[in-house]
């Protein structure tokens, strides 16, 4: 599907209660334009469940199931298996969770579902912190970032840990389909969601989701920051399919400082911390490159 062919209306209805500039809502809208109405969705307690599904209002124009924070992958597993038992094999079963619900609490169920190759599409909208509860660091929060639990005061200079690489954890499961996407590279986004829609088995897509209040940035900057995150190598666009790993976009490794400067969560960041971050970005890029050695035609 080309961008021009993307329908204006989708199965996520307008009129949401998200924050101004929320890219998670943008992701939900675009994902549901692609998936359409033959979808069942489960969202755990998160920003998305609050702004998109608080009784008596709901934005999802498809069957919706709200469960715990930690078990989205198992929830969609239950739905998918029940559909199978009923002989309904054409419905897309979508789990849509944030990074906290996927990389921290939800990791066990996500790993279980990937291992069993459950017939589910799992989309992680990664806004890099527990934004819903008021900006607390998660295990995928960036190094050096301020949050309400990684304060900047005295000797404390923000998040002391490097982010966990969740796509790589799922690749280690030899999962059937693993991809990352960004709202800025929309054709790549469409290609991946559409491909995942038409596949059976376990599919995982992680999408960088700019959270304007959490990242302490202006509400119009979401698309711009998403773009800069890809160009700077801060966010990689990768795709792992049937054992083959692809880099969909070669980062230029430029503009990291500009990207950081626009975000209040990095206001305090030192040159030393930026150097550490750059090293991490390069190392992660190289790690993916190294993983490509396993590709059948070894196209490193």
């Amino acid at each position: 599907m080309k961008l021009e062919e993307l329908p204006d209306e989708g199965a996520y209805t307008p009129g949401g209660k998200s924050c101004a500039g929320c890219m998670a809502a943008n992701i939900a809208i675009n994902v549901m334009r692609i998936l359409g109405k033959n979808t069942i969705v489960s969202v755990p307690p998160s920003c998305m469940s609050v702004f998109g599904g608080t009784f008596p209002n709901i934005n999802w124009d498809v069957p919706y199931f709200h469960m715990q924070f930690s078990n989205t992958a198992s929830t969609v597993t239950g739905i998918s298996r029940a559909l199978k038992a009923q002989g309904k094999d054409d419905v897309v079963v979508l789990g849509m969770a944030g990074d906290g619900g996927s990389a921290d609490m939800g990791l066990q169920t996500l790993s279980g579902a990937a291992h069993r190759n459950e017939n589910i599409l799992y989309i992680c909208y990664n806004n890099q912190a527990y934004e819903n509860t008021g900006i607390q660091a998660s295990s995928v929060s960036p190094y050096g970032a301020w949050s309400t639990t990684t304060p900047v005061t005295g000797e404390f200079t923000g998040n002391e840990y490097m982010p966990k690489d969740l796509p790589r954890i799922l690749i280690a499961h030899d999962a059937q389909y693993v991809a990352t996407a960004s709202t800025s590279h929309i054709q790549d986004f469409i290609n991946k969601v559409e491909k995942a829609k038409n596949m059976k088995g376990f599919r995982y897509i992680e999408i960088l989701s700019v959270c304007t209040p959490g990242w302490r940035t202006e509400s119009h900057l979401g698309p711009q920051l998403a773009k800069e995150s890809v160009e700077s190598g801060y966010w990689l666009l990768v795709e792992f399919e049937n054992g083959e790993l692809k880099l969909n976009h070669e980062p230029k490794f430029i503009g990291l400082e500009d990207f950081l400067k626009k975000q209040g969560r990095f206001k305090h960041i030192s040159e030393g911390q930026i150097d550490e971050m750059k090293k991490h970005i390069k190392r992660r890029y190289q790690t993916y490159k190294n993983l490509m050695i396993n590709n059948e035609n070894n196209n490193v």
Partner: protein
Amino acid sequence: MLRIEKYKDMITANQAVAIAVVRAKPKVISAYPICPQTEIVEDLSSYIAKGELKAEFVRVEGEHSAMTVCAAAEGTGVRTFTATASQGLAFMHEVVHSTGGMRLPVVMFIGNRTLMSPGGIWPEFADSMAERDACWLQIYVENNQEAFDMIIQAYRIGEDSRVLLPVMVCGEGYVLTHTSEAVEILSQEEVDDFLPAYDPPHAYLDTERPVAQGLIVPPEYHNEAKFQMHQAMMNAKDVIKEINEDFSNRFGRSYGGLIDTYQMEDAERALVVMGATTGTARTIVDDLRAEGEKVGLVKLRFFRPFPVEDIREALRNVKAVGVFDRSLSYGSFGQVYTEVRNAMYGERKPIINLIAGLGGRDIREVDIRFMFEKIKEIETIEAIETIDPIIFVNTRR
């Protein structure tokens, strides 16, 4: 091959439960191994592998997911089953509450086992008692036959549109789960007739008619949702009795409904008892009766909904009551005692709490005799406020 006709066999409660589940034909089963219920999971995966049950078996990575898979599958409109015990049930806890509140009639067997700490794998009711406020029906069975029969009945009760609630069938680990007894297995035809295929009339996940389940409900609507949960639980009281009667008419086994009584007609002293201990207590009642003591038993079957009216009625004419508990709420009393004494509000009767069998300690005949002695001791006390109500049976100090 599992026989499809009616037959009798010497089997454990675990085996009986697994066969009852095959007869009930759930479409999705999800479970995780934990003693003492593991044999159920093993048996069911084998029945499915051999084609004796057509169901999806989801071998999850923990009990939290087992309950999640069952709840979500049930929410998609199919019959489900899981079994667990002890830490496994505690690990499920948050999903157990969701399943009750979402009115999903999952059936789960609990092989009752103590909760850490102190650790142990032996029987106690601490695990299921910790789930008493989760809006699940709870039935405690006395023997393997009752375990079989109540799995079948649990689906009928839980799926009834007046109830629509999940049901926990609880039976003590090892004492029941690993002990063989003669069990009559109903034929597939009999069960099919008693428990038709699940065709939910209410909302479930279906792309043809989208609904939302388990939404965040703000304070403006919250009281009403929970009032309805309570009403459903109260409705279950009649439904349980109705289904017990239907079952009894068809198969000749009545369990009395929410409670059962033994030798209560002219009893002066009563022991309220629950689970497998009821069997031992029946023997002691017979012995004491032979010695001229007017004693009787009230077997508490359903702990949720709690049979307030039935308990009051059964204990109306006795002079003194002892309540057996195989678990306790530290700093308070045994959970059953609290409920029974509460049900007896307004009746000036001496009631004591007899705590026994914790962490699997044997409840011997001599212990039951001791319980009746203690009940006799309080029989004539008029100043009931002066009674120290909690007694630890067979306990070193």
